[in-house]
């Protein structure tokens, strides 16, 4: 035994939904848990209302692949710190999806009904609030009114937000300054800490291999990185564990496993394949204020029908009308009102030409920014993303502050394009009716835009097309579990956070059982 080697019962890699939840369950059950997190640990007072480089860019990464750009969190709490808190259960048909492979993609043991108890547990723990129409901000109200005008239904979106604390500031991407957004920083992580778990920020895991210490199974090698510049290593080390829970996020987990393949004696072929963008498709409607008043009868203050893009929780309302379980696969989607900070304004188009995202007309459109309404369609994509050769370190090559290049390639198939076209048609049908607006999808100049990376190390029953079994364990590697968005088999047609969290909760008992089998003194506790 190497006396210098640090050991622990469980190493959790990543501290977002997928890492924080197992960290808590294992620590609460009595295991010694160390959480390694690539990003910094920010406190509430560190979250600023600021778009200056070096502020939000400390905790948000914009990762460019080939044909896709992905937004992901990079801090203690992971994407839960920067997400928009929409907390929805995936519709039942999602679990029966077959994709273009022609067989059921989710494990047979996983259906909406079997996940419902775990959804409920997360909803109670975060907790999730049901917005009334009085809680829905102006943009969500406008979208709802447009839906009704077009003969559609529309729902207020359940959100993991303390509605009494929320100031509707619309700065959720920067973390919540008011402790209103219920990120992992406010629930599972403090609970894990209270049970003795240790969280180490600025620890970027590079490799997972076999342990050298008798009785331990995995050796996790990491570098520590500079808090001011994550490209600069400041040291490194290794820690050995009996159980590893990998939850580095769908953009990092497969890359880490690919790099570790030789050390681990191989990894399943599905690692780094079948990536899903959740079928994200964003459009911007340039609303006509007069028509909002005349057609919808809305006025937020005298003489001002709307002009309120900037106000609110970013997600207010959404339509479930196109989540028809009987409709053909690749034609179903939800349509959700959403706000994006002005860092994405570049992508809004003023016309149909490919270059209409810049220039004179675009600038004219920007002058009406307050009258924009942004909608996100979450469609059924084809799991067509594939990760290429991993970079020497990290999950991607960090070019500049929060900008990285990933080996991910995403070329949307005809199935995915069919879903996007259907979503575009529906957005126009709702928002262009009666001259309310002109709607255009975001420019594809950066490829597909994805805020919900999924499926790059997915669960399933078929070993050829899934990397994990139905208990989230990596095939052929007992004690190595993956519990982040990469484990989700397909796009979800809703925002994925609640499903990722429910699956991580569901994985808890199996991880604890395996830990106990490997000699960790731990019992599953469902207490909160």
């Amino acid at each position: 035994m190497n006396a210098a080697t640090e050991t622990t019962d469980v190493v959790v890699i990543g501290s977002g939904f997928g890492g924080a939840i197992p960290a808590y369950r294992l620590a609460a059950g009595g295991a010694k848990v160390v959480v390694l997190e690539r990003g910094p640990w920010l406190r509430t007072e560190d979250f600023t209302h600021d778009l200056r480089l070096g502020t939000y860019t400390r905790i948000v990464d914009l990762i460019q692949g080939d044909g896709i750009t992905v937004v992901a969190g990079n801090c203690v709490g992971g994407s839960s710190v920067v997400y928009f808190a929409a907390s929805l259960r995936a519709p039942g048909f999602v679990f029966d999806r077959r994709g273009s492979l022609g067989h059921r993609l989710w494990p047979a043991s996983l259906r909406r009904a079997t996940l419902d108890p775990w959804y409920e547990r997360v909803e109670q723990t975060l907790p999730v609030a049901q917005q009334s129409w009085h809680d829905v901000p102006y943009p969500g109200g406008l979208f709802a009114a447009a839906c009704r005008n077009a003969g559609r239904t529309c729902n207020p979106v359940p959100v993991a937000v303390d509605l009494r604390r929320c100031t509707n500031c619309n700065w959720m991407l920067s973390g919540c300054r008011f402790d209103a957004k219920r990120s992992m920083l406010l629930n599972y992580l403090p609970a894990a800490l209270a049970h003795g778990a240790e969280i180490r920020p600025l620890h970027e895991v590079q490799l997972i291999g076999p342990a050298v210490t008798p009785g331990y199974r995995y050796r996790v090698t990491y570098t520590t990185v500079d808090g001011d510049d994550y490209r600069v290593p400041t040291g490194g080390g290794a820690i050995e564990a009996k159980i590893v829970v990998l939850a580095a996020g769908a953009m990092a987990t497969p890359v880490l496993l690919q790099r570790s393949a030789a050390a681990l004696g191989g990894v399943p072929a599905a690692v780094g394949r079948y990536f899903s963008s959740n079928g994200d498709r964003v459009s911007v409607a340039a609303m006509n204020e007069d028509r909002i008043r005349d057609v919808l009868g809305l006025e937020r203050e005298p003489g001002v029908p709307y002009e309120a893009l900037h106000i609110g929780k970013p997600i207010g309302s959404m339509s479930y009308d196109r989540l028809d379980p009987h409709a053909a696969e690749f034609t179903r989607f939800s349509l959700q009102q959403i706000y994006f900070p002005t860092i994405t304004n570049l992508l809004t188009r003023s016309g149909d030409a490919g270059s209409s995202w810049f220039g004179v007309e675009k600038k004219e459109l920007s002058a009406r920014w307050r009258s924009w309404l942004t909608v996100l369609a979450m469609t059924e994509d084809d799991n067509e993303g594939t990760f290429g050769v991993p970079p020497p370190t990290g999950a991607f090559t960090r070019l500049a502050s929060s900008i990285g290049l990933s080996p991910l390639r995403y070329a949307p198939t005809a199935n995915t394009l069919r879903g996007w076209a259907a979503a575009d048609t529906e957005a126009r049908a709702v928002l262009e009716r009666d001259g309310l607006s002109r709607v255009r999808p975001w420019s594809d100049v950066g490829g597909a835009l994805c805020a919900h990376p999924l499926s790059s190390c997915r669960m399933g029953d078929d070993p050829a097309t899934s990397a994990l079994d139905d208990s989230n364990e990596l095939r052929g590697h007992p004690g190595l579990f993956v519990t982040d968005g990469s484990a989700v088999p397909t796009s979800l047609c809703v925002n994925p956070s609640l499903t990722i969290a429910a699956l991580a909760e569901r994985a808890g008992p199996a991880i604890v059982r395996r830990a106990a089998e490997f000699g960790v003194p731990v019992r599953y506790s469902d207490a909160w």
Partner: protein
Amino acid sequence: MTGALSRRALSRRALSRRALSRRALLRGLAAAVGALYAVAPAGRASASPALSAGPALPVDPVTVATLEAFADTIVPGVKRYPGDHALAGAAPGPGAVQAGAITLLRAPELGLTPLLPGLAGLLDVEATGYATTHGRPPLSLQPPLSLQPPLSLQPPFVGLRYADRAALAADLLRPGTPDQKLWLLLALVSALAFDTAAHLHTPDAVRHGHPGLAHLRFPQPDADGLWRYPRFSYQRTLADPHPSTTPSGSPA
């Protein structure tokens, strides 16, 4: 330096840039940025009030003019002074350059400064190619513009009219084209200067009338630099929920 000498120098520079492998430049981007940060890690951003306060490396006037013209293509603005050639004056009001695009491009946090001459050179090569294939005389072949040094520094991209700059930019930025990610990075930074004042703290930028944020009518913060909206909702039932909505508010 005379105008003629300057133009010959530009022409030689353009020719030498042709020989530069674009692939090599792209590959070198990551390495150069990484190397820069390895030897000169940036200070904590919040320590300085504006990125311009950082130790920006010197950039030659040709590079600056070329990059200004590119930023002005993405978000066009009025000319800053009579005889401003870098800005085409294609749109009323300030554009990306007035909003701070060059300051942002040179920000130590981005680490792009050492690459800017190469990017500008590559853009000028593209502009020369565009001019010759679209019947626009490249700058070096134009009749003498002036012997005055400021005009002698006009690089080929600056020599194009706005419509041609925009057409060339559209070509360079089309997905799937060889160096698209490079130009997208330049476009992104230009737009971020205008749409987010990314070199300034947002509360300060809004209060001091940053031209891009003012153009958007970005709202003013509260006195403590935070935004709050006590009135945020129409407070009316504006649609019927889907009939299959479950008790948790989710779809069935």
